[in-house]
């Protein structure tokens, strides 16, 4: 099994990984980062979204070996030491979620999207999040959370 080295939430790890192991399974099983959830394992639902080198990717479709040499951020790495990130806080304030299973994917996708599109409007946010499935909320509370985060980011 090849050894791979990658940086996850600012910590560097060297792990031997079977070639067929997904990045999601490496994060969950080898690094105990169980905040990343598997909702479909075929790249549709977005629950497993993590940020790799600044881009939101589906960790169920990326092999762990493909992540060698990258910097990965998972939901566990989103919050600053002193509380929640702007997106997390806005989602909390907006009652964005219910069961919480899709939550890490939405947080990662929304965080990556707002970094690149700070002035996004509701339509753009809906399109940006249309690759993430939530079965509980009807999305409105999630969209409101992202809009609130964008507004707070702009006011900073």
């Amino acid at each position, binding site marked *: 099994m090849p050894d791979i080295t990658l940086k996850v939430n600012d910590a560097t790890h060297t792990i031997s990984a*079977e070639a*067929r*192991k997904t990045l999601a399974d490496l994060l*969950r099983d080898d690094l*105990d*980062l*169980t*905040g*990343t*959830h*598997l*909702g*479909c*394992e*075929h790249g*549709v*639902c977005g*629950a497993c979204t993590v940020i790799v080198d600044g881009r939101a990717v589906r960790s169920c479709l990326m092999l762990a070996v493909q992540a060698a040499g990258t910097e990965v951020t*998972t*939901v*566990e790495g*989103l*919050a600053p030491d002193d509380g*929640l990130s702007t997106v*997390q806080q806005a*989602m*909390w*304030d907006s*009652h964005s*979620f*219910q*069961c*919480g*299973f*899709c*939550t*890490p994917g939405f*947080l990662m996708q929304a965080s990556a999207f707002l970094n690149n599109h700070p002035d996004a409007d509701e339509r753009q*946010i*809906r*399109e940006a*999040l*249309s*690759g*993430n*499935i*939530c*079965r*509980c*909320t*009807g*999305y*409105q*509370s*999630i*969209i409101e959370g992202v809009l609130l985060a964008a507004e707070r980011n702009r006011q900073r």
Partner: protein
Amino acid sequence: MAGIVAERYTGASIKRSEDQRILTGAGRYVDDIKLPGMLHAAFVRSPLAHAQVLSVDVSAARALPGVVAVFTGAELEAMTVPGPDALMALMGWAGPTPQFTLLATDKVRFVGDPVVIVIADSRYVAEDGCELVEVEYDDLPPVANAAFALDPSSPPLFANLGDNIARLHSRKEYGDVSGAFASAERVMDFHIDVHRHQNVPMEGRGCVASYDADLGALTIHAATQSVHVSKIAVAMRLGMEQGKVRALAGDIGGSFGLKIGASREELAVAAASRELGRPVKWVEDRTENLTASGQAREESFAVRAAVSNDGDLLGLDVKAVVDTGAYPGMGAMVPDIMEAMLPGPYKLAALGFESTAVTTNKASYVAYRGPWASETFVRERVLDLIARDLGLDPLEIRLRNAAPRTDPPASMVTGRPLVGVTTRESLERIAQLVDIPAFRRRQAEARAQGRYLGIGVATFIEAAPGPREPGGPSGPMGLESMRLRLEEDGIVALFTGQMPHGQSHQTTLAQIAADEFGVPFEQVRVVVGDTDIVPFGLTGGSRSATMTGGVALHGARQLKAKVLDFASHLMEASAQDLVIADGYISVRGDPASAIAVGEVARQAASGDFDADVDAHLEVEAAFDGGEGGWSGGTHCATVEVDVETGIVTVERYVVAEDCGALINPAIVEGQIRGGVAQGIGAVLLERSAYDEYGNCQSATFMDYLVPTACEIPRIEIEHLETVPLDADVNFRGVGEGGMIVAPPTLVSAIEDALSPFGVRIYEQHLPPARILELIAASDSGQ
């Protein structure tokens, strides 16, 4: 984190206490559990809808390095006790009982039926092992639809039943049915179909079973709507004393009716853990979820309606067929609720109802958010079809037929009193919120430009909990229990059998108890998910708002009385003169006397009191639903149908609903919006599809389409809180209503949009291809 400042928590959109862990990735779902020595299970599943199993060869799988055990259906049968489905047994099912095993032995009955369980060091290797299992099948004719199942020549799925009838529900009549039809000015006859679709929680089913051979005890970490039902199911099927089984649950990634008790796969995992003496995990993947977890709602209805020329619905005669799929359970029980609920909030004075539940070679019928909801679809469709024939407005026909609120209340012809039902108010509110004349003008202008807009309305009521029956010994949902304790750190702990999976009980129950007891919200802890410490309970049927909210309120009141009684000894004041506010007990009017409730609990625990002082600051509370009442409301949608592509866009969606007093408006609205979204998905996208051979055609999210943020509009919600019935507890359930009434609302709007083509709609699933077919088949569709 700063404390929440509120005069009263109940009724305010308090931020959820669940979110701190959920937003940081610290939630603990069943797949996050890792136990020392834990193994992983995967299932070999049937590729055929209906077949005899001739032979099973597991030798190559057993020889694979990393595979620890492989159990065939016959081996697993020998490790377990035969018995009925635990949920059906709990619900008192008395019909013919099909005999089947946890894993298929002699035959398979649907594509996805589990045949062999492979247990290995990792899920990867367990799936490798599954690939090496050789099963030889002999095809049987598939019973792929209800029509064939009703044919006596269809091969029976269960030899001991002799045919494919799971349950006959014999005809019952309420009111003067023949009289209503004989005197009716119009009699309408039609057939209404509701298609198969399913729960699809983002987290599928799963469990970790862990058997301790020294203790002879099994712990099951479950994703379940009731840890106690899971425990009972495991104990029954494994032939264990209930006291030797413990079910635990953490966070649960949704369910919507799917995860009640323990499924056949979970029971097989538990049996394997006992056999091996090691923990075993199984978490289904999405394909297993879509093909094998269960599906809902495939029902058809032969409907006759007796109608006056003015649009009065005088009588209904309904013959239902329920397609229960392979292993009958919920689908055989649901017709009773349909029958009771069919009159809805209307004056309907005559109802005939009968039903047949049939077995077919498809995944089993499971409960899904308002399992009986098709009765609402049928009734609301009937009203729309009448209105269309008579040229009445959809609001007008409903106002005409809605039972007026009278004292004493009118009753449904099937029996239940419509006490406190505010259907009329919700219809009138919709008329205020949606300017229908303005919409009609816009609709006419759009049609002139070749664009097709439509408006639809539907109403529902839900027995959540339902009215107290006159003279009844207790409320309609039985009793709900809760244990409450004042801890030495000042925490008021609530132990509840509710098993939240998105409903936010840790927030809502804490709001109620904090207000009633007199502590800050943060000082209430809601304890769930452990059969060793929580009372029996089940999250489902929209019961928790009234039943658990009510027991939290009354239990906190009882605990407060007990604490004040004890504090009266400590503070040398009469209990009547003591108050609890913000976590402190003081003598009324003397703030300097204040003692923290935690200090009182510590004093109680010290034991320095006479034996006649009750220092046990804990109560067991029960609540019977009080005066109960109905949830209900009216939904209205406006849509645009693109008649070139068949695509339906929901422009606007407005809800006027009454769930009594709101505990937390943001949480209530989340429940409503989530239900509406599932209803929109059911109509426009979702279908558990099978071909004529019983092959599942919707095994991935590329084929089973669920709505995304781009398909669901903003949903406007108005709350009516019209009629308090109980002195204390007027919260009513709101979990299912959105899903119950959104499909008829949307279909009503689509039919209205297509009215220039003369389209009439008798079905629920309207993806673009079907819309185009309806237009093409219509009078003016060329």
